[in-house]
């Protein structure tokens, strides 16, 4: 059932899905109408979103929105669950290298207040637990652990500490104080090697002192031992190597998707679906192999649309690079509404998009990848990568999104906006998106539309 690409509302998707089901559309076990996620789980925000109308996108959304069910089913079948906190893409690779272990990302609860339009009251509960509105919305995770109504309590909770977000560190420490045992591992702040200092190449064209790589490798070794004990199976180098290959298979799909979509003349897929797809790289949405299938479907759809010169927006749309994820998914829809198309992104975990080196000892490879995290190094490194991608994808405007209360990006956003505008000579705007942005939509829309208008006038000039 192929139609011209466009963004459709929830009701239209449910009608289409019903037709698909009657025709024997071959949906996966977690498939079905998106509307059920509103009725059963209270994800009322879906009513406000505009979705891509491809079956590949339907699969993506159903995959995302059934994660908690997937975790509970795994628990019921005796699998061990690992909560990988503040680790965007390293510990899950290790966990999935073991049999009967499933890693997930409790931090992902930061989107629950958005999806449930704050009816979950997680943010209020987090405040009562000591994490108020001056901290990042990821504080929702604290309440989700306490009330147990969202994800199941993991058998092992692993969290990186050190050069990570201050807010998250405070929230995770509060979680530990409330009774959740946490296995901490240290992440040093990445720095440039000094002249003559032994150093290592990292993914993404970065370098770090060899001492730092060794430190992270030793920390990850502790994590590997703890993971192995969880299922009484040693996490050997061989298993890790296989795990890295499987993770890279997912990352290759994502790389192909980004290249297909961002290099295209139009927008083969909308910004919202690209954000969700990229999130799969962090923790595989609790099913590594299915992540690959879901991403593969999106690559096929995007490739088909590019070949057919089809786009979800007018091909003359302004080419936009987006920095940082948004707390309210509705904000991503605004891009197309205002006449833009997503042609590049840094959603804070670009290191999870790079392939993990397969020609190194596996723990060494994972340590180097972890150290390439844009959030643990200087913002200048992050800006350099963004500039490269903007040039590669002929970007005409940049949007830097901020998350209210998130201290790790309070100043970084302003630096990125000014640096990118100066370096690239394109207009850049900074926006702040809270978990439910309805009241701010007119203002957000004005900012986005204005920056696209500036880009449009430069294009004409």
């Amino acid at each position: 059932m192929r139609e011209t690409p466009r963004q459709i509302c929830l009701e239209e998707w449910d009608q289409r899905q019903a037709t698909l089901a009657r025709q024997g559309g071959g949906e996966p076990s977690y498939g079905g109408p998106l509307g059920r996620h509103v009725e059963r789980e209270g994800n009322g925000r879906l009513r406000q979103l505009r979705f891509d109308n491809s079956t590949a996108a339907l699969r993506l959304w159903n995959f995302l929105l059934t994660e908690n069910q997937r975790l509970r089913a795994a628990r019921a079948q005796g699998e061990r669950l690992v909560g990988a906190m503040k680790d965007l893409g390293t510990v899950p690779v290790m966990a999935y290298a073991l049999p009967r272990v499933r890693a997930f990302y409790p931090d992902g609860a930061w989107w629950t207040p958005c999806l449930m339009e704050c009816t979950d009251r997680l943010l209020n509960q987090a405040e009562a637990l000591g994490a108020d509105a001056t901290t990042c919305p990821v504080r929702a995770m604290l309440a989700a652990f306490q009330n147990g109504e969202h994800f199941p309590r993991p058998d092992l909770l692993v969290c990186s500490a050190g050069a990570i977000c201050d807010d998250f560190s405070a929230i995770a420490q509060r979680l530990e104080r409330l009774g959740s045992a946490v296995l901490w591992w240290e992440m040093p702040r990445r720095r440039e090697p000094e002249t003559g200092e032994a150093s290592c190449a990292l993914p993404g064209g970065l370098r770090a002192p060899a001492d730092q790589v060794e430190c992270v490798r030793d920390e990850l070794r502790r994590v590997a031992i703890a993971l192995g004990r969880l299922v009484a199976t040693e996490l050997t180098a061989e298993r890790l190597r296989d795990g890295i290959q499987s993770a890279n298979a997912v990352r290759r799909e994502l790389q192909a998707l980004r290249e297909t979509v961002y290099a295209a003349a139009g927008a083969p897929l909308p910004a919202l679906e690209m954000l969700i797809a990229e999130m799969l790289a962090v923790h595989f949405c609790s099913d590594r192999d299915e992540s690959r299938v879901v991403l593969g479907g999106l690559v096929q759809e995007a490739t088909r649309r590019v070949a057919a010169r089809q786009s979800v927006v007018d091909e003359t749309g302004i080419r936009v690079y987006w920095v940082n994820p948004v707390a309210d998914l509705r904000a991503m829809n605004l891009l197309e509404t205002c006449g833009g198309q997503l042609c590049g992104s840094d959603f804070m975990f670009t290191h999870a998009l790079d392939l993990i080196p397969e020609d190194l000892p596996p723990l060494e490879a994972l340590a180097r990848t972890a150290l390439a995290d844009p959030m643990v190094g200087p913002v200048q490194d992050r800006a350099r990568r963004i500039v490269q991608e903007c040039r590669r994808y002929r970007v005409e405007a940049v949007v830097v999104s901020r998350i209210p209360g998130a201290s790790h990006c309070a100043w970084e956003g302003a630096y990125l906006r000014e640096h990118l505008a100066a370096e690239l000579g394109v207009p850049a705007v900074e926006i702040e998106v809270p978990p439910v942005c309805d009241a701010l939509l007119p203002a957000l829309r004005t900012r986005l539309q204005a920056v696209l208008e500036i880009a449009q006038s430069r294009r004409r000039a």
Partner: protein
Amino acid sequence: MAGLDGAAIQSVVATGYGRNRVPFAATTITEITCHARGVHHLDPAARSIVEIGGQDSKAIRLDEHGRVRDFAMNDRCAAGTGRFLEMLASRLALDWSGLDELSQRSQRPAVMSNTCVVFAETEIIGLLAEGVAAADIAAGVQHSVATRVVAMAGRALDPPVVFTGGVALQPGMVRALEGVLGCPVRVPADPQFTGALGAAILAGGMA
């Protein structure tokens, strides 16, 4: 309002916060672009615009062709907007022009320590209770609004600076802005309509 016959209108551009609620508009353009166009039409030498309205405030930088180079907006807080002045006028039981006339009698503008309108209202009550002259409070609030807007602009605004929006109708605000910027500020005729003028010019280009 303009007394035009509907048949005489060849194209309609909607601007401002309500622009998406104008079903008969051919297109929508933000007030940022419209102010830029309107100001460039009235004062082609202008390189910066400070626009303060009741809803928000903006600093807009222009290139030599009148195109927007960059902008900054305060749309989250009433402290840098006309709303602050409206609140003060209401508290002092004055109308809009009465507030400005009062501010011009100030001998020593009060220092407002709060940047939040809600808290500032409490501060104003405290100042009145301490016997601070209402004229000094009015001038202090105008200075506070000007300081807030210039701080939002981030970097120095290139001259010539044009001041638009309804708040530009207050001579006291013009002086406050000039004081904070350290340079003269130009105010076009009917500064509250500059955005509408820009929208009309842009609509004319589409007709």
